[in-house]
């Protein structure tokens, strides 16, 4: 039948629009990624490979380095997500107003997002350097010698420095989304709020915050997805050290895959676990925040 043949031809034509992108995405990204699931059941070391069932997963639960990397990842994710959104929202509230210099400020605060994290790591590495770094020298000059320290060599401090530098770099991104959300709030809502005497904190809690809920959702979710796979900042600032004290799950995968003693099977098991965590946590959070948006 000519009619249905024409329909098929049109359908095929549409398919040719989809296929080029799909080909590269499946062939050079998605399918290799999913094949990790199979590799995670082997003891593949780059050369030989034997099927070993769930042994890699069992081993992970007793591996102190892996457990530490999970603990660190939780700290990074929670720390960065909470602080970045707090600071980002506060900055957006202040910069949504018009005053002299506000555009320059927005431009500058967003700017680190376009720079390579590697380079930002170098710069902050220099600032925090114990001997010639600015921070220790300023403390010296202020007579606060006792506060001087190896900012990136003490494990506890180094983790928070990673949190700090990540927020320094990415805060502008959240800010931009919050500003767009704030600009979308109709002015007359504030005017009627004024009549009811809603000012200051009450105004923020009852009008502003509920109305930026969609921006809040997307910012928290983006932070969560990004920070669970935090890699560049650690790679650039501490390289996972001292020892393995600041290692995240993502940097552990790198270490297992391309560091000393290649264990690709084991690394795959870790990456599958990380992906499962991201998928589950993101789904839970999206569902929860969406529900909250409606209720507010």
């Amino acid at each position, binding site marked *: 039948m000519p009619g249905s043949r024409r329909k098929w031809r049109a359908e095929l034509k549409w398919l040719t629009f*989809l296929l080029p*992108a799909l080909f590269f*995405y499946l062939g*050079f990204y998605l399918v290799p990624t999913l094949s990790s699931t199979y590799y995670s059941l082997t003891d593949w070391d780059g050369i030989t490979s034997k099927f070993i069932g769930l042994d890699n997963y069992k081993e992970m639960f007793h591996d102190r380095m892996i457990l530490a990397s999970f603990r660190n990842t939780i700290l990074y994710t929670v720390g960065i997500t909470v602080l970045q959104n707090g600071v980002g929202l506060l900055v957006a509230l*202040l910069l949504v107003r018009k005053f002299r210099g506000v555009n320059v400020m927005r431009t500058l*605060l967003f700017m680190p997002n*376009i720079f390579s994290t*590697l380079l930002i790591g170098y710069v902050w590495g*220099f600032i925090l350097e114990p001997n010639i770094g600015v921070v220790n020298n300023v403390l010296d000059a202020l007579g606060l010698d006792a506060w001087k320290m190896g900012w990136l060599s003490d494990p506890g401090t180094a983790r928070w420095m990673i949190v700090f530098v990540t927020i320094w770099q990415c805060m502008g991104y959240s800010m931009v989304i919050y500003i767009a959300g704030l600009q979308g709030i109709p002015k007359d809502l504030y005017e009627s709020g004024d009549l009811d005497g809603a000012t200051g904190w009450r105004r923020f809690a009852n009008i502003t915050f509920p109305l930026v809920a969609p921006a809040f959702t997307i910012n928290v979710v983006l932070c969560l997805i990004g920070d669970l796979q935090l890699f560049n900042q650690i790679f650039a600032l501490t390289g996972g050290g001292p020892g393995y004290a600041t290692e995240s799950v993502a940097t552990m995968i790198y270490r297992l895959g391309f560091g000393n003693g290649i264990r690709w099977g084991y690394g795959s098991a870790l990456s599958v676990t990380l*992906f499962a965590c991201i998928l589950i946590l993101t789904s839970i959070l999206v569902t929860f925040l969406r529900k909250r948006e409606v209720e507010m």
Partner: protein
Amino acid sequence: MTNRAWGKIGRPAGQGLMWVLTLLYVYPILLVLLSAVKSKSELAIHPFSWPKHWTFESFSKAIDTMHYFRSLLNTVGIAAVSVAGVVVMAAMAAYAISRRDNRFYRAMYLVFLAGMIIPFQMAMIPLYKVLQTLYLINTYPGVVFIYLGMLAPFSVFILSGFVKGVPKELEEAALVDGSGTYKTFFRIVLPLLKPAVTTVTVLNLFNVWNDFLMPMLYLSDSKKGTITVQLSAFQGMYNNDWSLIFAGVCLIVVPMLVIYLFAQRFIISGITAGAVKG
């Protein structure tokens, strides 16, 4: 606190706070610039002072050590092909996804979206194997193919949002006039998508330009290295020559900074549009 009182105290306090915060962003940039124009020895003795003798020796040394022009050409080449390729292919896919609103295309959209939460570290090991099998390790096409796949999810996501905003009537009129599907897309739809295409192009360009992990792993031949990878080699070799490192940082950052200042509007609109629809 009444509104007026808040305005009297709160507003100047808020603005003051913002100036302090801005300083926290200006200082590192200033530090990089001023350190790069100092000599190595001056930087070691006076790390914070204004440079006494302006010298560009670190820049010329960085240009030599990074093989700047060769690696710049490598980076520009890889970025141009990958970004142009992914933007055109993603726009086509986004067009099909938004116009053929049936179950298959909706499923394909979700397949693309899934890529946005996949950590690169999960693809890292298997991709090495794929490139090895296809004899693409250490080659430009290998890296470009991965970028074409890796950048597709984000590009499809942003562009399909914008395609939905393009009125169908224009295309229908063109189709009636006998213009084919391809012609309609390239002559009518793509030009209408120009702002979105600009946004996606710029954001993808930043991604490729700043990436160091992927080329470091799959393009280890130093002759083929991108500029960011070349700079990362400094870390071990010239540990204490901060002046050299910062000159290298300047050389990498300046092209992107120029693009940022010109295309800022498109960057911001892309981020917020994606966020609002997400």
